[in-house]
């Protein structure tokens, strides 16, 4: 990882008696696209709002570019572009007026680049915010976050409501930001989006950060299946005690096996090579499967913290 631009250390925030986040720590390197995953109420938005100095942490620190996000919020906000989870803007201003207003509040926005973004996301700037569809409202908020080419983008579920075409455009914008060396901190529960755009991922559950690592690293903890067909029946015992095999199922009168796997498949491959293999197929889990596994709890769905986002 390159030098950290976002440093979160022991961050805790509660809402009265209700849990928000507890002792959350992570770092995001400059130029990284970091995905922040978790179900509703897990604490994603709370973490982001503390980073944005909209909430004050009970304990712990959040720093951006070495600056405390609360104590030096003004300097921090000069570096940031922000998309809130539930954007709400003056309903009586047009999209154009809103963008112009935020450009003025930020200062130094390149109007030509702003117009490029408007073209790119195909936004009609003459309509009032209240007349926009959900997707168009999201476009206004995305454009205002990207328009000043911020060093760090903090995006809370940024693509919710966007159509696939605009999602693709958004992916392109994130890619370009990364290529320009900018950092993107993106919360989402659309895992395919994270899989596509992020280099590292953190998973938050019931206020605790439960896992952090590269997207590929997360896949290492996956459960997956291997089905091997042989030219004739083979002894199943040859696979049951191998490293990485958690379950074995015999198919087609013993001439095929389906193996439930966790970890490396090296031992399985070597054992299978002792017999005439006809075919070998492996089912790769998506990040959704990895994600779901983290929220499994004795077959129960994870509880959501009511009223806490």
């Amino acid at each position, binding site marked *: 990882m390159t030098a950290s631009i976002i440093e979160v250390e022991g961050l805790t925030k509660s*809402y009265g008696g209700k849990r928000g986040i507890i002792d959350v720590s992570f770092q995001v390197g400059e130029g990284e696209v970091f995905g922040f995953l978790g179900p509703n109420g897990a604490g994603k938005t709370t973490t982001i*709002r503390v980073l*944005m*100095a*909209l*909430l*004050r942490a009970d304990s712990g620190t959040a720093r951006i570019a070495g600056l405390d996000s609360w104590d030096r*919020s*003004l*300097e921090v*906000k*000069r570096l*940031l572009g*922000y998309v*809130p989870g*539930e*954007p*709400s*803007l*003056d*309903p009586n201003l*047009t999209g*154009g*007026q809103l*963008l*112009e*207003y*935020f*450009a*003025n*509040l*930020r*200062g130094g926005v390149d*109007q030509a680049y*702003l*117009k490029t973004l*408007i*073209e790119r996301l*195909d*936004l*009609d*700037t*003459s309509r009032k915010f*209240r007349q926009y569809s959900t997707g168009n409202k999201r476009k206004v*908020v995305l454009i*205002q976050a990207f328009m000043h080419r911020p060093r760090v983008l903090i995006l809370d579920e940024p693509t919710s409501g966007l159509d696939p075409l605009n999602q693709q455009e958004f992916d392109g914008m994130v890619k370009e930001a990364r290529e320009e060396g900018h950092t993107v901190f993106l919360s989402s529960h659309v895992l395919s989006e994270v899989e596509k755009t992020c280099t590292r991922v953190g998973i938050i559950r019931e206020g605790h950060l439960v896992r952090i690592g590269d997207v590929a690293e997360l896949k290492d903890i996956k459960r997956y299946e291997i089905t091997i067909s042989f030219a004739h029946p083979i002894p199943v015992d040859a696979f049951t005690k191998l490293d990485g095999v958690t379950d074995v199922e015999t198919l087609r009168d013993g001439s095929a096996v389906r193996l439930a796997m966790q970890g490396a498949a090296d031992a399985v491959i070597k054992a299978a090579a002792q017999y005439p293999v006809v075919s070998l197929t492996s089912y790769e889990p998506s990040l959704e499967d990895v994600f779901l596994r983290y929220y499994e709890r004795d077959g129960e769905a994870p509880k959501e913290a009511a009223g806490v986002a």
Partner: protein
Amino acid sequence: MWLRSIYLKTLRDYRVPILGWGIGMGLVIVSPMASVSELVRTPEARAALVSLAQTFVWNADAIAADTVGGYATFKIGIFIFLIGIWPLLAASRMLRGEEDRSSLDMLLSVPRGRVRVALEKLAAMWTALFAMAVIVGVLAFLGGTALKASFGLGDALLFGLDLALFCAVIGGVALLISQFTHERGPAAGTTAGLLLIFIVLDMVHRVIPNTDWISRLSPIYYYNLSKPLVPTYGASLGGMLVLLALAVALSAAAVWLFARRDVGDTVPLPRWLRLSDRVAGPSRSLPEREWSLRSVYARSLGMIAVPTLWWTLGIAGGAAWMVIVVQQVEGKLKTLYTDSPFLTDLIKNLGGANAEFNAAFLGAMFSLLPLLLMAFAVTQVNRWTADEDDGRLEIVLSTPQSRPVVLFGRFAALATSTVVVAVATLAGAALASSATGIKLDSTNLAEATLGLVPMALFVAAIGYLAAGWLRSAADTGLISFLLAAWFFITFVGPELKLPEATLKLSAFYYYGTPLLHGLQLANVAVMVAVGAAALALGTLRFARKDIGV
């Protein structure tokens, strides 16, 4: 229980207005009752009161104005506009307000037809109006009994019913208009405008002979046909039935249109009535030169401009009207003033002791101006807190604008508006004074009008401070209550012989009687100091608080 149906849920939402407006309207009825006996102590004073009431007959019928019931009926006639405010706000919010918040989509996704949803909401509003009517009736009866009035409980309840029917008509108008507007604000504003037109139409037949047919176009005319608190006059069944029919017809038309239009859109107007069809394609342009987008202050000024215009017209116009009225009713009021210790005390308390009658009376009337400008400030505090509640500050605060700058930007825009209102009020009163020949001390007039500014900013600062802890509804409720309490202390406190220390708790105490004695610098300094301290504390709190929690 209250969440079992749309009707019950809506009625539950109205429980505070039922009590608040019911008791408020009841007190508006009872207050003048209490003063009648004091106003008619001598035959001369009684004759002067009847004569004075006749002077205002263009505004409201003056039937048996020297009796408890007649005087109360006459006074409520003058305040009929205020009575119409709640129904027009509630009805314009009933469907259009829910559409504004997108909550109607969810409500219409349950297996209930649109007509039923609308009717349940309408039924809840009507139930609320009739509950208010009962409260008004009971309070009027209790007040009348205490003052030995000649009307009974049945008469008082009929009076309340007449008011409720009038309110139902105004609600019907607002509900109908809201089918043609994209937001509830314009629906409420248009209905308020129509209410003013109704008041003028009703006046016509009292001023110009043989013009009853014009006044019959106004629902207020049919409301005025009943005067149950004047037993010799009684209630008009016909008038009440017309009001009921109007309320049903207007509401039915509104529900019929609602059932047929797109949710979130308006009833399509015929092509010839549309202002202009949008023919241009999508635009990509940006309003780069728009002044109101330059800063938080400029944007706040843009937001407050239209309300400022209306409040300026109301307050400056009201001040000019007060000056004109003083000249017109001078002779009649003088008799009342000298014969009624109550009126003498009231005017001296509010207008200033040992003053010329005209000046004292005008001073008393001018004491209403700070109340109005402070009410305007309350509406703007409500807007500030609502913006935070609705998450509209989130992106503004993600820009490199510090929290104090955002707060001061909004406050400074309010300050600018109050200065505009005050200067316009000064100009309006000065023009009226020179047009009517009423002599006013120009320095005192300037101080009385410009002195409104610290009053309004004082209440706004208290509101901004409380917003650090309270959500929008609670904050607005708190400062509205404070305003009502201050008003009570200053206007009624001296009659109740409240101690000086209690009188000093009212903000109006520090405004004093500037039209006669100029502003007392020490008092203004107290207001400014307390207001500045409240604003400073409010800013500190806002700078440190969690936003939107």
